[in-house]
């Protein structure tokens, strides 16, 4: 038996498909510009304690050894790459013909914050800032509103408040060190489901470094390389937990997008889960479908970082094993150092049969982020 891999088209398609970039990052450039968006006495409190929107930093050595943002993408007026919405409009949206860019705001590390109320206020401030400074600039920008996970009830309230704004695409949930199937998250899932907002999962530099942030299985990274390459290990237990806890049976409308952690590990996980489930179903009898069916219905994965497979045929074959027509979404991860050039991604995926190409470049994202 052989895996059926779709034949690639022999020529580049003449028309560019619609493109949704499922993972781009706007950066807040400084504490000063954020302060007006912090309300009441919180502003004084945060000024007094000289808070950093960079959050916690990377004290343990987890910082990228060079530049974690692309050096050639510094805006003309200065500031970090990704901090100028007009410049990013020119170099990302216009240059590459991106129809929607889903913005997951950085830097913010609220999963490892100390004070739950302060973290909730900062999340609100971030959302207000990016609405006014980014969404207002171009309607192609869409915002994954950020929440603090420290108090799920406050997070749910933030979702319900911000969900009524135009231009909101999803909910960026910086993960605490609790598996995603845990009932801790139910208030968040309920609010997200009510408003048809997918949950967006994305590492934020705290992983494996700070108390409160997700830990790596088996130990602690000792370098950026170990940290960065370990991202898939942070995702796989979440996939398992969401399915076997029954969370997706409780929240049948919930969608989850796992960004920037790769995807080629998924065929392994789908097969392992489906196989083990045949003998373990009776332990978790609420898992009523094959685990892979939950993945196909509820979970999405971004293309970035693009795999450097030895051959394009290998890449196609692995991709085919994870139902890409349902699960895979194009993303650039602009302006991160490892972000993908859309043209390079297009060369890898652009010659896929038209339907599959369209699903990856826009269809899956449009179906998942249904408010686009």
């Amino acid at each position: 038996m052989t895996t059926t891999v779709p034949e690639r088209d022999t020529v580049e398609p003449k028309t560019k498909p619609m493109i949704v970039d499922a993972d781009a990052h706007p950066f807040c450039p400084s504490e000063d510009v954020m302060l007006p968006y912090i309300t009441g006495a919180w502003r004084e409190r945060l000024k007094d304690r000289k808070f950093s929107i960079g959050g916690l930093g990377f004290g343990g050595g987890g910082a990228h050894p060079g530049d974690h943002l692309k050096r050639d993408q510094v805006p003309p007026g200065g500031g970090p790459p990704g901090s100028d919405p007009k410049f990013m409009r020119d170099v990302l949206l216009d240059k590459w013909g991106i129809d929607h860019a889903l913005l997951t705001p950085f830097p913010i590390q609220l999963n490892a914050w100390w004070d739950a109320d302060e973290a909730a206020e900062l999340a609100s401030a971030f959302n207000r800032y990016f609405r006014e400074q980014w969404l207002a600039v171009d309607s192609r920008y869409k915002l994954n509103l950020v929440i603090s996970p420290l108090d799920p009830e406050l997070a749910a309230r933030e979702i319900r408040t911000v969900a009524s704004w135009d231009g909101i695409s999803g909910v960026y949930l910086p993960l605490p060190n609790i598996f995603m199937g845990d009932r801790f998250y139910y208030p968040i899932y309920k609010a997200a489901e009510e408003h048809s907002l997918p949950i967006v999962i994305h590492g934020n530099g705290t992983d494996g470094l700070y108390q409160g942030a997700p830990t790596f299985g088996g130990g602690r990274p000792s370098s950026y390389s170990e940290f960065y390459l370990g991202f898939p290990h942070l995702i796989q237990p979440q996939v398992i937990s969401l399915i076997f806890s029954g969370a997706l049976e409780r929240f049948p409308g919930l969608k989850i997008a796992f960004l920037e952690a790769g995807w080629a590990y998924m065929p392994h996980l789908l097969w392992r889960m489906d196989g083990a489930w045949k003998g373990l179903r009776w332990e978790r009898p609420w898992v009523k479908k094959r685990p892979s069916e939950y993945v196909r219905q509820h979970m999405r994965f971004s293309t970035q970082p693009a795999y450097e497979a030895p051959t394009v045929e290998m890449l196609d074959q692995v991709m085919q094993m994870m139902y890409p027509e349902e699960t895979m979404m194009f993303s650039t991860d602009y302006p991160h150092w490892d972000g993908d050039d859309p043209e390079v991604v297009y060369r890898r995926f652009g010659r896929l049969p038209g339907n599959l190409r369209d699903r990856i470049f826009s269809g899956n994202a449009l179906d998942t982020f249904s408010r686009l």
Partner: protein
Amino acid sequence: MTDYPSHRLCRTDEIPENTARGFDLDDGRSVAVFNLSGEFFAYRNICPHQYAAICHGRITGTMLPSDPGTFEYGLENCVVRCPWHNWEFDIRTGRSLFTKEPRRLAPVDLRVEDEWVVVQVKPHARPVAQVAE
């Protein structure tokens, strides 16, 4: 019943209720006989998954599909759980339970004759996995 060769295996009271027993036939094949509350069922004695002797499986009920966080126990004594990977089969039908798994236990004709368990088995049957697929 078929014209396949008959094998008198044992007296019915030699297989207590809600237990199973395996019988090696003289042609090298093996049959599992289940006594489900006085009703007898026979299958080839191999799990269709990795060919474990299904007669050694636990005879049990199972958890029925249920809402998250709740358990509903049912099918008491109607389930055999393979001793290897815990696949579950309905003793009455040989079919997999709740997983849409197409592979099943291969049924063997059985009759009770003068308090004896008698089976008829096709000689030189193909391996069960091939039959199921």
